[in-house]
C-alpha cells in the first residue's frame, strides 16, 4: 500500500472518481491552471481538460449556483472553496437552495463542497475557521471531517456518491503533516460512522479533524497516570454516530468533547446535550468540553496557540475528569 499524505489522499480520491465517472467535475478558484491554492488538483486539467476542471471567477455564489444547477441536470459536481471561510459568501445558495431542494421538489442535489479549514499556521481570522457546526445545523446538508489520509479518500468518494449536498471539511494543518498507508483501489468510508481511534476504559474523548492528534497525544500522557482514555474520531458531524458515542459513554461514564471550532454553539454542545438526554444515568461526572474561545482566530502565533486547544489543555481536562 502506498504512503500518501492527507492532501495526496484527497487528490487520489478525486482523481479515482473523475476517472470512473464522467459526470464528476471540479470547479473552483484557481483549481485548473494553477492546480488549486493547495495543489490538490495539480495536473487535473491536463488529464481531464478545462471542461471538467473549471477555473471559476472569484464568486462563491456563482460556483455553488452552477453546482446546484448542474447536479439537478444529472452531473456530480465537486466545488473547491479556496478556504472554508469563504463559503459564507455562498450561504444563500447552499442553505436556501441546495439543502432544501430535495425536500421541496424531490430533486436530489449530489454536490460536494471541499472546504480547506482549520488553523495552526497564523492564517488569521479569514483563513483558519472551522465552520462545521453552522452547516450541521442546516437540515439537508451533510458534514464530514476526516482526520486520516485513508478516511479522507474513502469519505470523499462516499461524498461524491451521496445524493445530498455534502460539505467536506479538509483540515489544512493535516495536508502535508499527516502521512499513512492508503489503499490504491477505490473504496468508501461510510458517512456517519465514527472510528475508535484508541480504545480506553476510564474516559471517552470525543473529537474529530485535526484534534484527533491532539487527543491522541493527551491520551498517551494520561496513560502514564494510569488513566485509560478512549478516543472516538467522529469522522462525520452530520450525520454523527450517536450510537458509537453513547456506547463509549456507557462504558466509561466520563466524557470530554474536544473541538477546534469555537465553544458556544459548537457541535460539542449537541453531543453533550444528547449524552445528557440519552445517557444521564450512565454519567459519573459532568460532561466537559474543550474548544476554542468565542473570538475570531488570531493572527499572532502565541495568541493562536492560546486559542486553539493544545495537548496540555486536553491533559488538564482529562486529569480533572479522572480525579473527579
Amino acid at each position: 500500500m502506498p504512503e500518501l499524505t492527507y492532501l495526496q489522499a484527497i487528490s487520489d480520491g478525486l482523481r479515482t472518481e473523475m476517472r470512473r465517472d464522467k459526470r464528476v467535475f471540479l470547479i473552483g478558484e484557481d483549481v485548473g491552471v494553477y492546480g488549486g491554492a493547495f495543489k490538490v488538483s495539480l495536473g487535473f486539467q491536463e488529464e481531464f481538460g478545462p471542461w471538467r476542471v473549471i477555473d471559476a471567477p472569484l464568486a462563491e455564489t456563482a460556483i455553488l449556483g452552477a453546482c446546484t444547477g448542474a447536479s439537478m441536470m444529472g452531473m456530480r459536481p465537486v466545488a473547491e472553496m479556496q478556504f472554508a471561510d469563504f463559503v459564507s459568501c455562498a450561504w444563500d445558495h447552499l442553505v436556501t437552495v441546495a439543502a432544501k431542494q430535495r425536500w421541496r421538489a424531490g430533486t436530489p442535489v449530489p454536490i460536494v463542497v471541499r472546504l480547506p479549514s482549520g488553523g495552526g499556521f497564523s492564517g488569521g481570522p479569514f483563513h483558519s475557521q472551522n465552520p462545521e457546526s453552522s452547516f450541521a445545523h442546516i437540515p439537508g446538508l451533510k458534514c464530514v471531517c476526516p482526520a486520516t489520509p485513508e478516511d479522507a479518500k474513502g469519505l470523499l468518494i462516499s461524498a461524491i456518491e451521496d445524493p445530498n449536498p455534502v460539505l467536506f471539511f479538509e483540515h489544512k494543518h493535516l495536508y502535508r503533516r499527516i502521512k499513512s498507508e492508503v489503499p490504491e483501489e477505490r473504496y468508501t468510508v461510510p458517512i456517519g460512522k465514527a472510528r475508535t481511534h484508541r480504545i480506553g476504559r476510564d474516559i471517552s474523548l470525543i473529537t474529530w479533524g485535526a484534534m484527533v492528534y491532539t487527543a491522541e497525544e493527551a491520551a498517551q500522557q494520561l496513560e502514564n497516570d494510569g488513566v485509560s482514555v478512549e478516543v472516538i474520531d467522529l469522522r462525520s458531524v452530520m450525520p454523527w454516530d450517536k450510537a458509537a458515542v453513547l456506547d463509549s459513554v456507557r462504558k466509561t461514564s466520563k466524557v470530554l468533547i474536544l473541538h477546534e471550532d469555537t465553544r458556544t454553539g459548537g457541535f460539542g454542545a449537541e453531543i453533550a446535550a444528547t449524552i445528557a438526554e440519552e445517557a444521564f444515568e450512565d454519567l459519573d461526572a459532568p460532561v466537559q468540553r474543550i474548544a476554542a474561545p468565542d473570538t475570531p482566530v488570531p493572527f499572532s502565533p502565541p495568541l493562536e496557540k492560546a486559542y486553539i486547544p493544545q495537548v496540555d489543555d486536553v491533559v488538564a481536562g482529562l486529569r480533572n475528569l479522572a480525579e473527579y
Partner: protein
Amino acid sequence: MATETAVDVVMPQMGVSVSEGTITKWLKREGEQVEADEPLLEISTDKVDTEVPSPASGTLVQILAQEGETVDVGTKIAQIGGSGGAPAAVPAAPEPEPAPVAEAPAPAAAPVPAAPVAPTPPPPVQEPGGNGKFVSPVVARIASEHGIDPNAIPGTGRGGRVTKQDILAFVEQGPAAAPAPAAPAAPAAPAPPRAPQPQAQAAAPQAGETVEPVSAMRRGIAEHMRRSVDTAAHVTSAIEVDMSKVVAARETLKKEYQSAYGVNPTYLAFVARAAVDTLKDYPYINGELRGDSIVTRNYVNLGIAVELAEGKGLIVPVIRNAEGLNLLGVARSIADIAARARDKKLLPDDVQGGTFTITNPGGYGTFHGTPVINQPQSAILGTYALVKRPWVVTDENGNDAIAIKPLMNITLTYDHRLVDGAYAGRFLRDLRQRLENWEGDGG
C-alpha cells in the same frame, strides 16, 4: 479587595457517619490573607481532629462560627473574599444570610463585536450541600439496582465522592470490602441500658466546679466505650513474658534502624509484629460477631491506640494489612500514624476498618489493665511496663536459680461471646513463645 469573588467556607464532611464538627481553633483572623490550601482552622469531629485547608485564596472576610462552636456538616462557617466589607458590627447575632452584593455595577452594554469570552474552566465538584456526598447519576442507578446506600461506601473521588469504580468494586467484592459498619447489630437478648446522654443538661455548677463543653471526640469516645461494654462480654487474661531476647534484639537493631531509616524499633513494634503473626492461628481473635454470622479475615488491620496531647482524647488509627509488614514496616507505620494522630493529620480512612487493636498504657509504669474492646472487633491486646524482676530460671541440669529478667505483662481482653478462655490462653502462650524466642529482626 472588595471585588474578589466570595467563597464560602463550610464545615467539611470528615467521614461517612460524621454529621457535625466542632471548631477548635481558627488559625487566621478576620481580615487576614489566606492562600488556597493553607490551613485555615482546626476542627474536631467524633472521628478525627484535623486541620481544614482554605478552599480559596483571599481575605478571610468573616468568621461565622467561633471556637468551641459545634455546627452541622455543610454549615457556612466563614467567608473568604468578596465584598463582605467590615465584619458585622454586632458579632453576637450573626446575620441569617449575608446578602450577596447586588450593587455591582451592571456591565456596560456590549460593544458590537461581543467581548471575547474566556473558555469556561471545567466546574469543580460540587461541595456536598447537605449531609450526604454528591451521588452521580450512574452511581445512583447502580446503587438502586443493588439496593445499596452509596453513603456507606468509601469514596475515592474528589472530596471523597463515591465513583462508579468504587461502587462497582463494592458490588463485586461485597460489603466485606467496606469499612466496618459504624454500629454492629445490637445483641437481641436483654436490651442494654441506654447510654447516658452526655448532652443531657446537668444541674448548674456548684461552687468549686468548672464546666466545659463535651468535645465531639469525647462524645464519640463516651458513646463508643459505653456501647462496647453493653455489647461484648469482656474477659481479660494476662501473661508474663520474659523479654530478654527482644531487649537484646532491640539493642542490636536500634542503631541500624535509627541511622538507616530514622525509625525507633519500640517494644510495641516487637509485640505488634509477634501478635499479628500469632493472629494467623487464632482467626476469631481477629474476627467479628456480625449479627448471626462469624466473620474471619485473611488480613489484619491493626489499630494502635494513640493518646492525644493534654488528655484530649484517644484515637485508634489503623495499620492496614499489617500481616504484610516486617518489623521495620510495623515500626515505621506505628511512628507514622502516631505522629499524624498528634499532628491532626489523620484522614477518616485512617481510623476505619480495624480488625484488632493494641493499646500500650505501660509507658507510665502500669503493670496490668482491662481495656475496652474497640467495636466491632473481638479483642484488644494491652502491653504494660517492661520491668526487671527476679525470675526463677532452670538451667540445663534442672537446677532452679533466681535471675534478673526484663519482664512485660501482656493482657488480652476478649469478647467471650466469640472467644473462649482456653482459646485466648493458647493465643497468649504462642505470643509469649514468639517473643521469648525472638531472633534478629524476627524474619
